[in-house]
């Protein structure tokens, strides 16, 4: 008897949004469960003066202790940590940043739109570290090609093997003089540079680029405020057969039958859901090999001397760019493996914490350095390790009585050595450009703060060492897919969103194909 139940998609961000976009266009009925509400832009995006905020900009205590990106101005955006608690090992802080709204974290991403390369997909072949993905760059390239035009990615083609080119709207803008000086310094040192590659538009979100098209097909129903508790399994067939969820407000529980389930609830939420559901873990690997990318924010803060006095001549300041990974590409050349990238930007005023002044003297100096700053942020690869993992902490439950996650994640000597190298190279690059370096450091932000958490349900060719196969389908259950960042086997130093979108597109088309064949 044919199964007429819908595909249930959990999550509405990059992964869930792309799954809905692909499947509904292929004529497949889908129901999307999103834990949060639909954003009303006219109502929810109004910028209020600080005097109208209940806590005058300082925020409600305890609401976002780990979300450094949050402020009281945008407090309606982030998942409240009192409602959504989690735990971590003492002394090993993990900053878990969540958005529970239709569109997920694509409502507030940095839009950096990079591809991974075979330096990531086949990293183990290159240097013997970590594991290979079960796919290569050639498998995913056609999907990147289709994702980039949807997100109107602007960039400049360079031919870097470690940072494949894509289908870009061409960025042929000229650089400011300060950036030109920096680029010349980089060239002299043999460090590659390029323009940023970014998705453009007023919004570049699942909420405006993917979901409206999916809804327009008539094949998508979005259920908002649906907090998923469990994915259920048919004991006879071994297949998943539905999803239990609670209304966010009433806490009333509902169930929905499913022909197949696509989990795209974000790296850690998807892993948590599978752990809480007791599914897809015959390998014992579920929750393990969690990783992210190290971030050293403002690894160097410099001043462009000619811009002092707050009167930088037109054309001197502004703009920025990107330095892709350049370490350990050919041979192992440093005291660490893999490498790091930089964002760099010209303009703005340096953070007051880098100035050894206070009071009037500080105010005067900030005016003097207005629009004179040049800063760099380093982003480095973290090798996934079995010991970095999440598990269910049954002693802590969220607002809906669902057991919370306990996160164990530490950086190692490899990451610390990488951060120090990134600091020294940044310092040298800025000096080479004639900038005055006023501060440099190698202090990484806590794990999670980059919001590039990856792994936990990793893909792999071997069901004994991975959760998902090469199509993001669980090895254990053929009608259960996970298409978000939890599927990553490694992540390089590139921002992961384009890869999540491409993986979800590829997996969704595979699911449709399997449905046509009658395999799902």
């Amino acid at each position: 008897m044919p199964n007429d139940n819908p595909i249930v998609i959990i999550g509405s961000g990059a992964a869930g949004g792309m799954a809905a976009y692909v499947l509904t266009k292929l004529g497949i009925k889908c129901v999307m469960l999103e834990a949060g509400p639909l954003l009303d832009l006219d109502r929810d995006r109004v910028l209020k003066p600080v005097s109208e905020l209940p806590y005058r900009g300082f925020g409600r205590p305890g609401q976002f202790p780990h979300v450094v990106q949050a402020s009281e101005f945008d407090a309606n955006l982030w998942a409240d940590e009192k409602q959504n608690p989690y735990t971590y090992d003492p002394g090993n802080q993990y900053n878990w940043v969540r958005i529970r709204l239709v569109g997920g974290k694509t409502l507030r991403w940095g839009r950096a739109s990079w591809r991974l390369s075979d330096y990531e997909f086949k990293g183990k072949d290159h240097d013997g570290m970590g594991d290979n993905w079960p796919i290569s760059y050639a498998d995913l390239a056609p999907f990147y090609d289709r994702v980039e035009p949807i997100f109107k990615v602007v960039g400049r083609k360079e031919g870097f093997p470690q940072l494949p080119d894509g289908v870009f709207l061409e960025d042929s803008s000229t650089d400011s003089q300060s950036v030109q000086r920096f680029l010349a310094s980089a060239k002299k040192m043999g460090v590659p540079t390029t323009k940023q590659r970014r998705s453009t538009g007023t919004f570049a979100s699942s909420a405006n680029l993917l979901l409206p098209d999916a809804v327009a097909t008539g094949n998508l129903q979005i259920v908002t405020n649906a907090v998923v508790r469990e994915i259920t399994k048919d004991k006879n067939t071994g297949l998943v057969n539905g999803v239990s969820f609670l209304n966010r407000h009433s806490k009333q529980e509902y169930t929905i039958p499913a022909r197949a389930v696509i989990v795209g609830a974000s790296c850690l939420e998807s892993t948590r859901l599978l752990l809480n559901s007791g599914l897809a873990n015959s390998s014992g690997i579920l929750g393990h090999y969690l990783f992210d990318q190290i971030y050293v924010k403002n690894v160097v803060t410099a001043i462009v001397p000619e811009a002092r006095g707050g009167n930088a001549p037109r054309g001197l300041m502004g703009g920025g760019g990107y330095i892709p990974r350049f370490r350990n590409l050919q041979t192992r050349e440093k005291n660490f493996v893999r490498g790091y990238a930089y964002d760099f930007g010209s303009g703005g005023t340096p953070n007051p914490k880098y100035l050894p002044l206070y009071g009037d003297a500080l105010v005067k100096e900030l005016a003097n350095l207005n629009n004179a700053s040049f800063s760099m942020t380093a982003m480095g690869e973290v090798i996934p390790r079995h010991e970095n993992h999440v598990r269910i902490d049954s002693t802590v439950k969220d607002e809906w009585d669902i057991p919370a996650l306990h996160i164990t994640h530490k950086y190692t000597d490899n990451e610390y050595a990488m951060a120090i190298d990134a600091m020294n190279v940044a310092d040298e690059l800025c000096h080479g450009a004639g900038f005055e370096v006023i501060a440099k450091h190698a202090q990484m932000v806590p794990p999670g703060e980059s919001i590039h958490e990856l792994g936990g349900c990793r893909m792999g060719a071997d069901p004994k060492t991975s959760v998902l196969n090469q199509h993001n389908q669980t090895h254990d259950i053929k009608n259960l897919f996970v298409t978000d960042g939890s599927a990553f086997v490694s992540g390089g130093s590139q921002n992961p969103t384009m890869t999540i979108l491409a993986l979800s597109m590829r997996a969704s088309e595979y699911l449709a194909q399997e449905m046509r064949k009658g395999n799902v």
Partner: protein
Amino acid sequence: MFSPLAFLLLLAASQPIPYSHKTHLALGLECKNCHTNRDPGEMMGFPVTSTCMVCHTTVKKDSPAIQKLTEYAKEQKPVPWVRVYQIPSYVFFSHRAHQQAGATCQSCHGPVAQRDVIVKEVDTSMGACMDCHRKNKASIDCTYCHDQRQ
């Protein structure tokens, strides 16, 4: 059936005095005659009431609208014009920099010289800004228009 412009007119902000750009520009005035660009060049200004009175002391002085204008002038109060185009405070924007780069008033404000009533008929969202920057080979880097992330 409404045309898109007719629909926008329905949403147009009510101004304190019915002012026609079409009528005034047809007389040979230019945008910069009334909207001056003072240093450092970010903002375009609104005219002081006395500028209007250079002509309206005699021209149409009996119309109710001009009488209202005359009252503002006598009290040395600015006319409380309602702004039609506004850019959020977290965006750096300079009219002067755009003019120097070759943008015209019409680029962002539409065919003002043909309009009796000004409505927001040109998209000035971030997406529109980025499209225009890219087409004109201007930077689309975040820090070009927004404060550097700290």
